[in-house]
């Protein structure tokens, strides 16, 4: 298997995630794009781990950690979105301009 196939797939998914992050207005969909970027990075971790043949499996262990941290991030992020929605009746990030003068 070519290592570049995995790396290019990871780069493409990461770029798609960046596109979604820039384009979306709904806060839940922005978190969804972040999750896509995390998945892309995990592909790179595991592919490079197998490529290097690391005895300590550093790439795989790091991918596990990043999955756990992504789960925590989604939990906190959705809690914040829920709170904002309860106060503003909207999950649209363009409408969150409380700090604008």
């Amino acid at each position, binding site marked *: *298997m*070519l*290592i*570049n*196939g*995995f*790396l*290019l*797939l990871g*780069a*493409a*998914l*990461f*770029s*798609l*995630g*960046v*596109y*979604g992050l*820039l*384009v979306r*207005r*709904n*806060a*839940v*969909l922005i*978190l*969804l*794009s972040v*999750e*896509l970027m995390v*998945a892309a990075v995990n592909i790179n971790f*595991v*592919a490079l781990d*197998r*490529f290097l*043949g690391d005895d*300590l*499996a550093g790439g*795989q*262990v790091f991918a*596990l950690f990043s*999955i*756990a*941290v*992504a*789960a*925590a991030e*989604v*939990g*906190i992020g*959705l*809690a*914040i979105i*829920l*709170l904002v*929605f*309860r106060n503003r009746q909207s*999950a*649209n990030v363009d409408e969150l301009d409380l700090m604008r003068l």
Partner: protein
Amino acid sequence: MTVGDFFTTTENWVFLLIALPMLFAGYKVVTTNNVVHAVLALVGALAGSAALFVLLGAEFVAWTVVLISIGAVIVLFLFGIMITRAPIGLEVDLSHPRSARISAAVASGGLFVLLGSAMLAEFGDEVIPEAADATRTDALGLLLFQRYVVPFEVVSVVLLAALIGGIVIARRDPSPDEPAGTRL
């Protein structure tokens, strides 16, 4: 390696068979106008990444993705969607207008060209060694609890903090006119 060489190996065919639907699913995640469809497309992309991990011989990571990302995180997303918008279906204001979309596409396309050209220049034709020695789950477990035990414990503290923080942030404050503890 020529294009013909690439298509002689079965593994490369399997890779393409997984990678192309993943790209399509990722595209749907960021472009669809239906929130629930976006989440379901993310399920497709995550399942594809789990299949790639199996292909690479990283079985434990693959099943962790299935259990945690697909099983738990996606359900959490669906909860978030159900709570934050009552009418499920086609919506028009999910994305920025067309002009902003074009500049975002240029920016992310440029990022992809930058990353892709760097990777092509660095790795060229190098191949991943045969996955005859797939990482065994018991070996990975021993590594996690010996070599990586400190970061493992730190991650569990992070998860506990996120659990408590999520509850504290999202719960309703009791209003002054009703006694505490009567509402969730």
